[in-house]
């Protein structure tokens, strides 16, 4: 018997852990989540709590049932539940959120082998499944005061809905001018999924993750930049007439670019691969928004690029030291 522990080198480790990373990602989502509660009220809070509880509980039950080590409290299931709720309407019935959470954890994550082995972002698949199952409920938004001056009416359309159905001018008049439109989009006082509205708070959380090194700034910058560029080029009145600023702040782009397109598990590992991923996700988003049937395409664009990730990884392997070629 040895008096000392024997193991392969190295014998010291960095302090970073998976729960450490995951809980900090949760923390980065908190400002936008808190804003949602203030802006959309109690239903938003209920949906987020239900999303988290069902995600964590289904992971716990699955792992116990499968006799696996329980990692349900490592923060990753919590992110899935929270992101799922945040990417859907605040007035969605809570039982649907619960079903989405269970689907995301059991089908997308655990049945693929658990954390690290899922190909698709669990929250996004959960959302896509609900979209297919309850299309009406999934596109029913909060009723809120129409902001156009002098009109005392209620509207339940998101800015992207208005753009898709009534055009850009209607969008401007709804918000009472371009400056008002930008301001409300930036602060988050607009209709939409409950956690996606506040550009400024999502940016804040994103910057924290970049500062922590969990997110490479390249991914959100390239994805959002691609959306801005393409929406400007393919504007409503011909080339170079679009409103990139609106498109960059609209829909779930901020939430998706900072928190979904940066989900380590489902995106490429090298910077080169991540750039390809971000360009693809941005381009598909624009394609859906401008040409497709849905007003918003962030969720599907990221899912499609998730599917390409193994392929991208294969073709963007780093150059091995001493292999010749570019240094």
């Amino acid at each position, binding site marked *: 018997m040895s008096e000392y522990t024997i193991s392969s*080198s190295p*014998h010291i480790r960095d302090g970073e852990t*998976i729960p450490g990373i995951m809980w900090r990602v949760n923390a980065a989502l908190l400002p936008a989540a808190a804003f949602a509660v203030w802006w959309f009220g109690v239903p938003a809070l209920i949906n987020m709590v239900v999303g988290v509880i069902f995600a964590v509980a289904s992971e716990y039950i699955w792992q116990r049932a499968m006799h696996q080590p329980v990692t349900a409290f490592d923060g990753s299931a919590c992110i899935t539940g929270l992101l799922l709720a945040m990417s859907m309407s605040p007035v969605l019935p809570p039982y649907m959120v619960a079903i989405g959470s269970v689907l995301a954890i059991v089908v997308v994550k655990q049945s693929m082998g658990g954390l690290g082995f899922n190909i698709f972002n669990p929250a996004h698949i959960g959302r896509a499944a609900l979209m297919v199952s309850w299309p009406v409920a999934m596109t029913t938004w909060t009723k809120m005061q129409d902001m156009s001056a002098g009109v005392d009416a209620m509207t339940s359309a998101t800015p992207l809905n208005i753009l898709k159905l009534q055009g850009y001018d209607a969008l401007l008049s709804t918000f009472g001018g371009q400056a008002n439109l930008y301001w409300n989009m930036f602060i988050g006082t607009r209709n939409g999924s409950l956690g996606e509205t506040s550009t400024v708070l999502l940016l804040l959380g994103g910057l924290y993750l970049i500062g922590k090194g969990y997110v490479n700034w390249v991914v959100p910058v390239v994805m959002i930049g691609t959306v801005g560029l393409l929406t400007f080029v393919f504007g409503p009145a011909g080339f170079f007439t679009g409103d990139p600023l609106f498109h960059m702040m609209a829909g779930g782009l901020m939430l998706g670019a900072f928190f979904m397109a940066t989900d*380590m598990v489902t995106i490429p590992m090298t910077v080169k691969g991540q750039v390809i991923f971000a360009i693809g996700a941005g381009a598909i988003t624009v394609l859906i928004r401008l040409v497709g049937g849905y007003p918003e395409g962030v969720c599907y664009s990221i899912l499609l690029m998730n599917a390409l990730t193994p392929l991208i990884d294969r073709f963007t392997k780093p150059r*091995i*030291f001493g*292999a010749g070629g570019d240094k």
Partner: protein
Amino acid sequence: MFRSFLGGIHPHDGKELAKDKPIQVMPAPKELVVPMSQHIGAPCTPCVKAGDLVKRGQLIGTSPAFMHADIHAPVSGKVIRIEERPHSGRISCPAVVIENDGEDSWADGLPLERDWRAMTNEEILNAIQSAGIVGMGGATFPAHIKLKPSKPVDILILNGAECEPYLTADYRLMLESPAQVVEGIQILARVLGVKRSVIGIEDNKPEAIDALKKACAGIGIEVATLKTKYPQGAEKMLIKVLADREVPMGGLPMDVGAVVQNIGTVAAIADAVVRGVPLTERIMTVSGDAIAEPKNLRVRIGTKYSAAIAFCGGFKEEPDKLLAGGPMMGMAQFTDEVPVMKGSSGILALTRRLTEHGPEMNCIRCGRCVKACPMGLVPSMLSILSQRQDFAACRDSYGLMNCVECGCCTYICPAKRNIVQYIRNAKGFVRAEMARAKAKEAPAKKEGAKA
């Protein structure tokens, strides 16, 4: 100017424990255990037997193989036993056990005084070979073989990076004996006929940089400041940083015209050439948070770890791991009965506080290992493929055999995956397969020749 390479990590270096402790001579203990394998290559066979009296520096082990380094008695005394003893690199190994007579009398004619400038290159190489010098940074490649490269070389690189955390032996040597180091470099530069000699030192050792700059003034040896980053002292990284050349995959430094030597080796070479003394002692660091008084020691080859640790005040806390070498690439020991060898750069005793980490989890593909790998590999994929026993994919698609096992990936992994261990496992399988294929081929060829 700070120079660097791609990848790498910044672990806590722990050097503050021993950095300011001057090299202390540890008296030779009563019993010395001298393993017959202290180098890469064929083990030596003892050329003494139990009962023989030996003098310090007397040849006690040698081999007819080309790839070996002779082994000498570290003290004068009596050979009491030749038997299997614990070994820090291979569990156990035949060793010559010597009882120290305390006289420390040198073998005939040693030490001598000679002027290396009057010696021919061949005489110098013979002196290095007969002194049994090996790479003392830990790789233990026989020095005289490295100094006769089969390809033209034009640059000599001296490794003073000492990038392994906790180790400070090279640092103290550079600080305390810069003249000896410089003399060794001059000898090597002449033997190799190189145009350029560069000493690379990390920028966390400014005193050593100053000392060597002073000693090198006006004699054409460069002192280069390197960025403090592990594994700055890896041979391939050093060549890349100091000469901007990349050793090709599977190649050696001489393929790009470079020879790399460790600072400790250079000093030993100076001793061997100028004073004619074989390698019987070395400088090493005894440190770690479990050691009462961390020290840099001049210690005889064959001193047991237990004796060296006792000389440093013993353990102040219960150690979890006892390491031969640094914490990144050193080997965990199962007993403190192992002896100091030519390649022993340090003895570290670390408590649970430093060695403990959570359970291994799934890879979350965070890419930190990809960023940290100085060799441009994808360690996460290698580890997963190795776990699946898909060793062919490791070798063919993910460059398995290029891994230098520096440990950056494993250090940085938030899932605490034992990536290097999986990679070593895969390498073992691939090597075994290659050996089997070779064995199969060899008899077939013979038969073909007969027919």
